[in-house]
């Protein structure tokens, strides 16, 4: 281990070096999730015709997640009209609750596009530690904003960010 450590440090240091240009944003990584018909969908195909996409990781057992998605659902119509944003709700419910996700979102009258990430493949690819965790993706498929946790009122600031991204401006909020 001792012999290797300097090499490891060097490797990490080199790997993290980047030319000083504008901050680089990562693209949505490719992972397989399922839609509610059971079809396998690749997440790198998440797109919204040049408009922003808001992705939220949630679970049927997570109260703050449900609070967040309910708050978004209340304003979704307005958000869509003003910015064209699309909301994608990725459920991390595993086999215990996965079959309840479709009845759950229908029962709530939520209008989001919903996917199942039963074994956490997409969750891991997006480096999610805890839910709720949301990501905003711009027209080029780049992750331009993210937020972990939910507090009432978060959606107001989020909408400011969505408006900037929809207008092609850099995120300043």
């Amino acid at each position: 281990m001792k012999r290797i450590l300097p090499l490891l440090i060097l490797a990490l240091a080199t790997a993290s070096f980047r030319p000083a240009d504008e901050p680089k944003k990562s693209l949505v990584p490719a992972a397989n999730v399922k839609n509610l018909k059971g079809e396998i969908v690749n997440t790198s195909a998440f797109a919204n015709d040049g408009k922003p996409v808001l992705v939220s990781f949630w679970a049927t057992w997570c109260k703050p997640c449900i609070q967040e998605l309910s708050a978004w659902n209340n304003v979704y119509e307005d958000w869509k009209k003003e910015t064209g944003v699309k909301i994608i709700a990725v459920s991390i419910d595993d086999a215990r609750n996965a079959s309840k996700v479709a009845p759950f979102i229908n029962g709530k009258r939520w209008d989001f596009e919903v996917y199942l990430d039963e074994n956490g493949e997409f969750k891991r690819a997006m480096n999610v530690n805890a839910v709720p965790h949301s990501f905003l993706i711009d027209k080029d498929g780049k992750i331009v904003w993210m937020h972990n946790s939910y507090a009432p009122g978060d959606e107001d600031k989020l909408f400011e960010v969505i408006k900037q991204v929809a207008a092609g401006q850099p995120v300043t909020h």
Partner: protein
Amino acid sequence: MNRLYPSIAFTLLAVGILLFHAPETSAQDLGGISGNFQLDAQTYKADSLIGALAVPEKVRSNGFLNLTYSKGNFSAGIRYEMYMKEILGFDPKWGGENGQSGITYRYAKYANEDYELTVGNFYEQFGNGLIFRSYEERGLGLDNAIDGAKVKLTPVPGLQITGLVGKQRTFFTTGPGIVRGGDIDLGLNEFSTNFMNSLLPSNLQVRIGGSLLSKYQANDDPTYNLPENVMAWAARMSIIAGEFSLNGEYAHKCADPSAANGLNFNEGKALFVSASFSTRGLGINLSLKALDNMDFRSDRNAQLTNLTLNYLPAITKQYLYRVNTLYPYATQNNGEIGMQADIFYSFEKGSFLGGQYGTTVTLNYSRVHGLDTVHNIPFTHISDQDTTINNDMFYSSEFLKFGKRKYFEDIGIEISKQWTKHFKTNFGYMNQYFNKSVVQTPGYGVVKANIFVSEFIYSFGSNQALRLELQHLGAKHVAVDDEGNELTDSSGAAIVPQLDGNNGNWAYGLLEYTFAPTWFVSVFDEYNYDNSDPDHRLHYLSGNVIWVKDALIISLGYGRVRGGILCVGGVCRPVPASNGFSISISSTF
């Protein structure tokens, strides 16, 4: 493990050089590094009342860092983990004698539209996981990642074939067994469009799938001729017709005598069926799960949660409230049958009951019984009168029949309503039957609980809110016979089973102030005011301050905390029992 470091270092060096020297044609050609980090540290005060012992290290901490590099179709990643020593509640094998750390996960993957190749560590699930699921739940100390190779092929749209081979992770090493498996998933609608216009009408979706898993472990038992290769298979189907959907999977496991099933030579079987109906405003789901002798591990000597190959979650509701985590049902892998019904309904906005913002009602019923078994040699099974377990090598059981013994039952209703733009409430009532003798420790009887929960959220200003939760659990502890009848003594008085440190009634209160999107301040108390032992009528009082910036969360806490799922600071995670200061840092980048 040490042999890994050179290869990891060289991989990273290669990646680093590539990044450094790659021509700067465009930003995304360089690929990118992303990752996440978490550190949890806790100080410990000896607290004999909650069973918290003196911890010689005073402070303990768990932490990990994931780094993922991706460029086009290629990705690679590593995870560093440390347990200095492990936080109480985790298996002591994590920290070992003097704390442990190291690179426990590394992989390289290439994926395009037609295939995906992974070498190193990976997670995977076949179907519903009845015969195979490798996964991680870092907060609970669960990680049974495979170390080996995996190939996924998508020869035509709608058809996916997966094959894998490897060994399973256990703590800082891998188990002794070799795991081999494959899965086929076929979506008939997508698949048939490769050859003809459409085989099925567009409102009928059919998928079928099958999987096979086999493990090898040398037999070193001096007495028994134990099978070295054990195979399991599963077949599944799902049909979606408009608003209806039906999913089913059946699994079979060959004879697999192990420590977990008492060296039983019976074959294992499992059935999972779920049917649902959902339309805008209403969702109904019914599930049935039966299993017999389905504990499946890559090491026949493994116990607890170690080296499990399959995933058999409880068929009971996972509640959103704290007092509901007092008596959580756990699947009895050696035999049970259960059903669950869930109904989700919302009254439309603007209707009489819906009000301006809508009202949601959730109903739940679940029930789990044992399987009745007939044993070939004299056998006494676990009961409150006689706690002898005399395992034998064969038995017969009635697979799809609810047996005499009830393990769990609950019925619940929750109503969620937003009254104004600023005020929202949630109310719930649940009635539970929890067979503690079966699920936890023989001799502890049955807990019958009535639970009330309430939550009030009031928001003010543009970004501030107060959240109040009040909950109560009323519990009665009874001893029962095999038929579930309550036992009485000769004078007709109810027999009280053994009681542990937590028993009787609980009251819970939480107050949380949030200043979006940055601050959470919360105080909560759980009070076991009716404990049979007056010395254990304890307050579990604790406070938390949490600061959030984008995907960085720093949380400070102090107090006495009961183990279980805890949702404070806008996220939910499992926590062990503790008394002292805690700090947690979590970040995604």
